[in-house]
């Protein structure tokens, strides 16, 4: 138990405390806030951000960053919508989209690794590329009307008589659990932490740095595409402009979750809490009714500020300062 409260774990403990505090405060302020329905909706409404943030966690843990995820989400929605409107079976369309997203991530990872380029720039190029290609597929918004989609949307696991857990939240939770295992119980997960801690040391220890790094970006691309598919379930449509700026929401969720952007320190579970904090603020604003969406950004920005400063005071890592 004592070991659990060491400095390294303080950021994630702070995240957990904030989540409980926020949820508690809102429960006192608004009647009906503390209910299973609100909690279930937290997962359903933020499933696309959550799935993407989980993928982003691995990228950030390895000391990198992926700016392309929002655009890949947008591309996936319009790609899937177009295919389904061309009479392609939805399962095939979804499978194709996941493959395309993964390959896109793998390509960026390969360029970053082989040519030793800054992830910021390569994924920035990836972001522009995916957004442009989304408009090449279709500049118009497309509706998705198909029995399969109706079935998935109607599907739910009843928790109580009024509350059901939707398919999208099921996907989010499944991805989260898989990522938890991947990060903490596999060789791949250990390698990710090792690369983020010190890539040169990892290489000298004989870890497969190149292969792991390419897999990390492949995973992020896959999660971005899956996030896109979740988004099509939520909106039943595809649009090339979907997910504009979403990469920054995902990064914010990961950072609020206690993962250090310098790499090597953080937990997938923290990201889950980060997403839930993000969702709790959104829900509270909709409960209040008088506040507009600008307060969401101010609240998220303020929280980010508090977290970063706390983290900074706790860790006092000397080698900050440079961005790459």
């Amino acid at each position, binding site marked *: 138990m004592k070991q659990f409260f060491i400095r390294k774990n303080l950021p994630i403990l702070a995240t957990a405390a904030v989540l409980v505090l926020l949820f508690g405060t809102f429960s006192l302020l608004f009647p009906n806030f503390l209910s299973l329905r609100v909690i279930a909706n937290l997962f359903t409404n933020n499933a696309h951000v959550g799935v993407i943030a989980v993928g982003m966690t691995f990228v950030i843990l390895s000391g990198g960053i992926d700016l392309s995820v929002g655009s890949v989400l947008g591309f996936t929605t319009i790609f899937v919508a177009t295919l389904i409107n061309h009479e392609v079976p939805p399962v095939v369309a979804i499978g194709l989209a996941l493959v395309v997203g993964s390959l896109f991530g793998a390509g960026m990872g390969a360029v970053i690794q082989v040519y030793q380029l800054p992830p910021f720039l390569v994924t920035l190029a990836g972001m*522009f590329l995916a957004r442009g290609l989304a408009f090449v597929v279709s500049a118009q918004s497309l509706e998705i009307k198909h029995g399969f989609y109706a079935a998935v949307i109607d599907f739910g696991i009843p928790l109580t008589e009024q509350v059901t857990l939707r398919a999208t939240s099921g996907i989010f939770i499944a991805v989260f659990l898989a990522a938890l295992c991947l990060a903490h119980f596999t060789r791949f997960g250990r390698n990710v932490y090792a690369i983020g801690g010190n890539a040169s040391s990892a290489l000298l220890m004989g870890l497969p740095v190149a292969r792991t790094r390419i897999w990390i970006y492949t995973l992020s691309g896959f999660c971005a595409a899956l996030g896109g598919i979740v988004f099509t379930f939520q909106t039943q449509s595809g649009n090339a402009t979907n997910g504009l700026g979403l990469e920054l929401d995902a990064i914010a969720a990961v950072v609020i979750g206690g993962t250090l952007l310098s790499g090597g320190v953080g937990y997938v579970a923290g990201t889950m809490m980060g997403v839930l904090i993000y969702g709790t603020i959104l829900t509270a604003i909709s409960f209040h009714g008088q506040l507009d969406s600008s307060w969401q950004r101010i609240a*998220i920005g303020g929280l980010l500020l508090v977290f970063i400063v706390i983290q900074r005071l706790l860790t006092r890592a000397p080698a900050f300062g440079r961005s790459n």
Partner: protein
Amino acid sequence: MSNAPASIVSRLAQSRLVWPLAGLALLLLFNLAFDRAFFDLSTRDGNLYGPIITVLRLAVKVMLLAMGMTLVIATGGVDLSVGSVMAIVGALVAFLAERAQLGFPGLLAVGLAAALIVGLFNGALVAYVGIQPIVATLIMMVLGRGVALSITGGMPVRIEDAGVLFLGRGFIAGVPVQIVLVLAVFLLTALACRKTAIGLFVEAVGDNEVASRLSGVNARGIKLLTYIFCAVCAALAALVSIGDVGRVEPDRLGQMLELDAITAVVVGGTVLTGGRFTLTGSLIGALLIQTLTMTLVRQGMPSDVAPVPKALVILAVCLLQSARLRAQLAALFSKSRRAVS
């Protein structure tokens, strides 16, 4: 055979400006060959119009942002908040012009003061609290957009102040004011950097912060200064932009422009890890991307697809800077030479 031309050629080949300049020249040559109308200039009421002027005008915002971004990147940082700073300044100016009937000097002062505060905030977080620049400015990026939205209540606001409109739409001696403004900012910045020690200090901090501090440079102060300057550039870009459009949409003003500015700086030859920088390069980088987009749009590419060529330019520039690729190319080249001989 004199030595002078050879030394110019070799100096040019070593200069970082050579690739962006070559790219720009290539585009202009392409237009010269296939699209003569690109170079058409006309005067209406003594004012200049034409595709080239349009390219310049469209690139103005990014050029202004790129000036500040160059110095921030040269210190080894990055500023993601410039788009949100534009939104804050735009919203504030529009709001005060409408509600407080403030005149142009007052609006300008308020806009610049707002930028100063945001720049101070960013700079203090990076230089004194020691937070990574990406994170520190990400905070302001999210927060600032929210502040801008809450100033106007999320509603678009019309701009009617003659001074702001003049900045965006006016002409001085036939040349659009925007272009004159960019040139003025560029010249002032270049003078301040190259004729005083500021430029040297910025490069020293970006190259090796500890070493610069040990040799007596106020590294933290220099960093703070670059973030303030970057925010002020964003304020100018906001004034030009809202003057041109004639209205402020706080949710869209400046959105994603931070990434365009970073792109222009990188394409211009300043590397993201800091150190040596080139303001001229950043201007050329912004122009290169805008000219490429304009050329492709004139050749029939839908303007929505414009991010694709941008992506390819970034990739090309990154790869050109990669030591590994250069080695691969050199190996290929020497192999083929050997095969011939």
